[in-house]
C-alpha cells in the first residue's frame, strides 16, 4: 500500500499517575475506513482527543502525517493538520444558518461587514457534492439530525480536512439516514479521505470497515484486515474473554404456566396523542419480554410516554390486569406499577450531581419514610448496597455522584431505581444505548431474570440483534401506527428482515 496518511507510534497519555493510553500504535491510509472499537473507557476518546489537539500526548509519543512528524496543539492544530472530528453531540449552533455554521470562526468579510453571499456561494458546491437537500441559508434548528451531520461533514470538507474522525455517528440517526450516511462515507473514501470510524455497533463495522483496530484498557489489542473481521473475534478482543452467550435468554413464557394465564398485565387500547401516536394497541403478559421496534421517529418513545402519563392521552385508554386505569402523571404510573427507563438517561433519567444512593432510592423514598416524610437512611443505604452487589455496579461506594460513573454503570443505577419499586410492568427505552459490551450482556440477563419472576417487560430498541436476541414477541411501529407483530416460533428465531419490512413498509410493496 502507499504511504500512510497518519501514523501514531507509541502514543501514551497519563493523567496524574493514571495511564489512559499506553504505547498505542495506529496507522491509517488515505482511502480507507478504519474502524476503532473498544469498550467505554478503553481509550478511544483519549486517542481521538490527542488527534484533535484537545490533549497533548506524553513525551516519547510520535505522530506523523504524510511521513512528517507533527505536534498537534489546540483545536486549531488539529484543523491545520487536516484532521476533523464529527462529535457524538453535534457541535453546531442551531440558531445560525448552514453557511454561517460552516464558516464559524473563519467568517468571510468585506470591509468589516459579513460577506453573507460569498459564504453561501462558497458552501454551495460542497453541499451539492454531499447530495444535501437543504440550502446554505437554512437555519440549522430546522434540520433533522441526519442533515445536521451532513453540515458537520461539510464543515470538515470545507476546511480541507483529509482525516475525518466520526464518533458513533449513527446514534441519533434513523435507519434510512444511517444508510445515506454510509453511502456518503464510502463516497468520501473513494475521494481519497481517510476515515476513522468509532462505533459500538458490529453491523456498521461489518458494513463499512476496511480495517478494525481494537483498544482495551488503554492499550492496543490488535488490528484486523477486512477478511478477518468477525463479530466473535472482535468481541473477544474487546472484552478479553469469550462471550459465548451474549444475549441471555433462558426464560420462555410458553413454558411458564403462570405467565400465560389471565388477562395481559398491560394493555393499551387504541391510544393516540393527536400528533405522533395514531391509535396504537398493544398487550404485554406477565413474564413476557415484548420488543417495540421501528425506525427512529416512528413514535415508539411517544407511545411509551402516553402509557406512563408523561404526555396526555387524547383518545383510547390503558388497562392494567384487565381494569381500565387513568394515568395522568409518571407518579401515577409508578403507583399503578409501571416503571419506565428513559432513552436519554443523562437528560431525563439520572441526577448526575446526586449520589448513587439517592439516585437509586429516589422513587421509593416516600414509601420507606418514617413519620410521613423523614428519610430512612439505613434502609436506603442497604438498598443501594444490595443494588451494587446484585447488578454489579462498579463504583468506589454508594455515595459517589452518579455523573462520575461509566455509561453502563449509570444505566444500572437507573435500572436499580426502577427495580426498587418492584414494578409489575417495566418499559425499557433503549436500555443498552451508550453501554459497553460487558454491561450490555449483564443488562440482558437482568431483563431475563425479571421475566422469570413474572414482570411484564416492554423493550423499545433500535438495535435489531438485541430485539431478536431477548424478546419473545416483537411489535413493530411505523409512522405512529402499529405496523404488525411477529412472534418467536418454537424453533425459529425472529427474523431481522421481517421486522425491517414492517418498519419500513416494504411488506406492502411485496403483497
Amino acid at each position, binding site marked *: 500500500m502507499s504511504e500512510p496518511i497518519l501514523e501514531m507510534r507509541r502514543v501514551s497519555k497519563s493523567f496524574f499517575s493514571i495511564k489512559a493510553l499506553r504505547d498505542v500504535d495506529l496507522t491509517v491510509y488515505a482511502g480507507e475506513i478504519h474502524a476503532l472499537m473498544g469498550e467505554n473507557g478503553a481509550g478511544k476518546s483519549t486517542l481521538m482527543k490527542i488527534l484533535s489537539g484537545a490533549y497533548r500526548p506524553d513525551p516519547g509519543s510520535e505522530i506523523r502525517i504524510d511521513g512528517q512528524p507533527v505536534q498537534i496543539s489546540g483545536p486549531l492544530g488539529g484543523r491545520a493538520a487536516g484532521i476533523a472530528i464529527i462529535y457524538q453531540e453535534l457541535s453546531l449552533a442551531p440558531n445560525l444558518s448552514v453557511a454561517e455554521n460552516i464558516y464559524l470562526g473563519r467568517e468571510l468579510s468585506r470591509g468589516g461587514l459579513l460577506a453573507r453571499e460569498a459564504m453561501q456561494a462558497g458552501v454551495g458546491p460542497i453541499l451539492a457534492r454531499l447530495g444535501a437537500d437543504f440550502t446554505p441559508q437554512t437555519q440549522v434548528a430546522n434540520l433533522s439530525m441526519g442533515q445536521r451531520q451532513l453540515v458537520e461533514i461539510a464543515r470538515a470538507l470545507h476546511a480541507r480536512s483529509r482525516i475525518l474522525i466520526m464518533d458513533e455517528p449513527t446514534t441519533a440517526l434513523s435507519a434510512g439516514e444511517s444508510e445515506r450516511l454510509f453511502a456518503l462515507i464510502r463516497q468520501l473514501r473513494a475521494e481519497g479521505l481517510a476515515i476513522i470510524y468509532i462505533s459500538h455497533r458490529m453491523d456498521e463495522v461489518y458494513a463499512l470497515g476496511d480495517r478494525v483496530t*481494537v483498544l482495551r484498557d488503554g492499550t492496543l489489542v*490488535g488490528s484486523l484486515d477486512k477478511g478477518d473481521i468477525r463479530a466473535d473475534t472482535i468481541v473477544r478482543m474487546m472484552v478479553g474473554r469469550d462471550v459465548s452467550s451474549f444475549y441471555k435468554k433462558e426464560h420462555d413464557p410458553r413454558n411458564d404456566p403462570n405467565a400465560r394465564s389471565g388477562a395481559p398485565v398491560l394493555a393499551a387500547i387504541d391510544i393516540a396523542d393527536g400528533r405522533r401516536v395514531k391509535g396504537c394497541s398493544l398487550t404485554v403478559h406477565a413474564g413476557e419480554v415484548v420488543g417495540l421496534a421501528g425506525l427512529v421517529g416512528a413514535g415508539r418513545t411517544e407511545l411509551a410516554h402516553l402509557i406512563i402519563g408523561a404526555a396526555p392521552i387524547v383518545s383510547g385508554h390503558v388497562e392494567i390486569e384487565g381494569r381500565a386505569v387513568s394515568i395522568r402523571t409518571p407518579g401515577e404510573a409508578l403507583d399503578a406499577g409501571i416503571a419506565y427507563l428513559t432513552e436519554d438517561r443523562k437528560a431525563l433519567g439520572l*441526577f448526575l450531581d446526586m449520589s448513587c444512593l439517592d439516585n437509586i432510592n429516589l422513587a421509593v423514598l416516600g414509601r420507606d419514610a418514617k413519620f410521613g416524610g423523614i*428519610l430512612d437512611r439505613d434502609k436506603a443505604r442497604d438498598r443501594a448496597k444490595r443494588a451494587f452487589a446484585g447488578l454489579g455496579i462498579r463504583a468506589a461506594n454508594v455515595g459517589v455522584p452518579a455523573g*462520575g460513573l461509566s455509561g453502563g454503570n449509570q444505566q444500572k443505577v437507573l435500572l436499580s431505581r426502577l427495580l426498587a419499586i418492584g414494578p409489575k410492568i417495566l418499559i425499557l427505552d433503549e436500555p443498552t444505548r451508550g453501554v459497553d459490551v460487558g454491561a450490555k450482556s449483564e443488562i440482558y440477563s437482568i431483563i431475563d431474570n425479571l421475566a422469570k419472576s413474572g414482570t411484564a417487560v416492554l423493550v423499545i430498541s433500535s438495535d435489531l440483534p438485541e430485539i431478536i436476541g431477548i424478546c419473545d414477541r416483537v411489535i413493530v411501529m411505523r409512522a405512529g401506527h402499529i405496523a404488525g407483530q411477529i412472534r418467536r416460533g418454537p424453533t425459529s428465531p425472529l427474523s431481522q428482515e421481517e421486522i425491517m419490512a414492517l418498519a419500513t413498509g416494504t411488506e406492502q410493496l411485496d403483497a
Partner: protein
Amino acid sequence: MPENGASSSTAPVAPGLAAAQETKRQRTRMIIRAVGMLPVLLLLCIGFHVLSDGRFFTGQNIGIVVQQSAVNTVLAAGMTFVILTGGIDLSVGSILAASAMAGLIISKFPDLGVLWLPAAVLTGAVFGILNGGLIALLRLPPFIVTLGSLTAVRGAARLLGADTTVFNPSIPYAFIGNGALTLIPGVLSIPWLWVIALLVILVSWLVLKRTVLGVHIYAVGGNESAARLAGINVWAVLIFVYGVSGLLAGLGGAMQAARLYAANGLQLGQSYELDAITAVILGGTSFVGGIGSIWGTLVGALIIAVLSNGLILIGVSDVWQYVIKGLVIIGAVALDRYRLQGSART
C-alpha cells in the same frame, strides 16, 4: 501485522487504581465544597481583629455581628431552598417590608395585638405561595415573576401604612428584637434574633437533608425533567420552596419590626434580596441548582456581616464599603463557576 491481534497480551492499566484515585479526588472536592468559605470567614475575622487593634473579638462586637447577620441569615435560608431548585427570589426584601407593616398594624389592635407575629409570618407565606403558584403552575420564569413581585409587593407595603411609618413602642414580644437569651448569667447570653436565625438554619438542614421533600428539592434543581419522569410533583416542590422563602421573609419582617418598634413600607428591606443571594452563593450553593448546603449559607451570611462590621471598625468609608462588597459578590460567582468546572455536570 494484525495476525496476532486477538491473542497479544498486554498489561492492563489497573482500573482499581484509577477508581481509587478518582474517589480520592471526589472526596477532596467534597471536602472543599463542605468546608467551603469557612476558612475565608476565619481569615476575615482574624484580619479585622489585627487591623482594628483587637477590637473585633470582643463580646460586645461579636454580639453586634451576629445580631446584624440574623435577619439576612433567615432570608438567605429561604433563598437557599429556592436557589437549590435552580430558581431565584428577588422579592424577599419587599415581602419583608410588607410583612413588617402588616405585623405592626395588627399589633396596634388592642385585642389582636399578640397575633401580630403570626400575622407577619403568614403575610410573607401568602406572598411566597403566590410567587410559587405563578412559577409552578403558569410555568413563568422565576426571575421575571419575582422581579414583578419585588415591585408590586413594595407597593403593597407602602399601601398598607398609607405610605407612612407605623410605630408601636409597646409592641408585644419586643424582646425578640432586642433581648438576649441568658445561658450563663453574667457570662454568656445570645441575642434572641440570633437564636431564631440558628433555629431556622437547623430546621432548614433537617428538611433538606433528612426528609423526602429535601431530596426532591435537590432532584428538581439537579434535573427537573428527570424529576418529573421519576414521579416527583415538581409543581408542589416549587410552590413549597417559594412559600418557604416568603414565610422566612415574613419572619425576617417580624424580627425587624420587633427590633425597631416600627416599620416603613418604602425603606424597610431595600435590596435585602441582594445580601441574601450573596450569602447563598458565598456558601457554595450552585446558581443552576442541585448543589449546596444550608451550613454554607450560614457561613456566607456571617461573611457579609463580618465584612460590614470589620470595614467600619477599621474605618473604611461608607462609599468604599459598597465597592468592596460588590467585588465580593463577583468573586463569589467566579468561585461558583470554578467549582462547577470539576463537577459531573460538565
